[in-house]
């Protein structure tokens, strides 16, 4: 039952999505692309792009999108897709909701508790690893093409990658502007 699967998978993502934002990319990709094949790497990258350009947190955006598209590509009608969308979005928020209520109620003064501290001593560095893995997993032929397949596209892809990387890291250019520029470059050159 796809709806139930969507619910469980997105609840897991909500539950283990430490670091939020981009660190969650790795979690979502692991479940949605690698384990369940609901999307290809390329489709997943498109959603991250859409998520960058639209308001709202990545976790919710992907849940909503994947909920709809996985139902529709499994042959269900559009209204079932909307139900899938709702299920996945509800599921990704649910663990936050329960956890934050507990934290708001009791746990705030345990924040600096040595046990909590030591657990995060492991999780914090691992989240960096998650982000590295997310980037490496997206460096595929589907996203960059390859020298043998289309040398021109491959070279342009590498250039646009470097442009966006340094544009963001060194010059702090707004991601939306970077994506818009690369879209124009793509329209002209590719």
């Amino acid at each position: 039952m796809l709806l139930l699967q969507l619910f469980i998978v997105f609840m897991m993502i909500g539950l283990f999505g430490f670091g939020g934002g981009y660190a969650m990319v790795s979690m979502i990709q692991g479940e949605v692309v690698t384990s369940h094949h609901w999307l290809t790497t390329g489709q997943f990258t498109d959603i991250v792009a859409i998520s960058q350009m639209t308001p709202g947190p990545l976790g919710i955006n992907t849940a909503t999108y994947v909920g709809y598209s996985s139902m529709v590509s499994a042959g269900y009608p559009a209204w079932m897709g909307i139900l899938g969308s709702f299920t996945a979005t509800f599921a990704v928020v649910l663990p936050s909701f329960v956890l934050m209520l507990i934290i708001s109620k009791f746990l705030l003064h345990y924040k600096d508790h040595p046990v909590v501290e030591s657990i995060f001593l492991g999780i914090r560095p691992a989240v960096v690893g998650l982000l590295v893995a997310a980037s490496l997993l997206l460096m595929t032929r589907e996203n960059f093409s390859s020298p043998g397949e289309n040398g021109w596209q491959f070279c342009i892809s590498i250039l646009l990658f470097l442009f966006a990387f340094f544009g963001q890291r060194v010059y702090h250019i707004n991601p939306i502007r970077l994506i818009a520029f690369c879209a124009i470059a793509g329209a002209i050159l590719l």
Partner: protein
Amino acid sequence: MLELFITFFKIGCFTVGGGYAMIPGIFAVNLSIFIGYKLFRTPGAVVCTLGTALPSFIIILLIALFFQRFRDYAIVNSMFRGIRPAVVALIAAPVFRMAQTAHIRWSNAWIPAVSAIAIWLLGVSPVYVILLAGIGGYTYGQLLK
């Protein structure tokens, strides 16, 4: 309460990208739940969550409904060929800043390295990596005592 909903609906409308926090879940959502609870207990938390999640939900649902229809146009396809490498770069770019906030040093640099390799090359689910890292941290803390 209505005011609270409207406020977080606005936040939901304008938080592009996503934040960082060391609590699982989505930063904007977590924050809204926390504030909603502080102000109006559980009903406040529900209202704030809805306010934050609803704009994304509506916008992305509309995109999902129509995206596939024009995704196959040649011009859209070319645009996305340009966009995809940029998206990968945007995910890779915060790695160093995040390494700084996570206090990565030579002594613990093996943790992100092993995590990344496990996920990237061995196909381990990030869920297990986080679980193991948490258990590892806990065990380390107990050993230090």
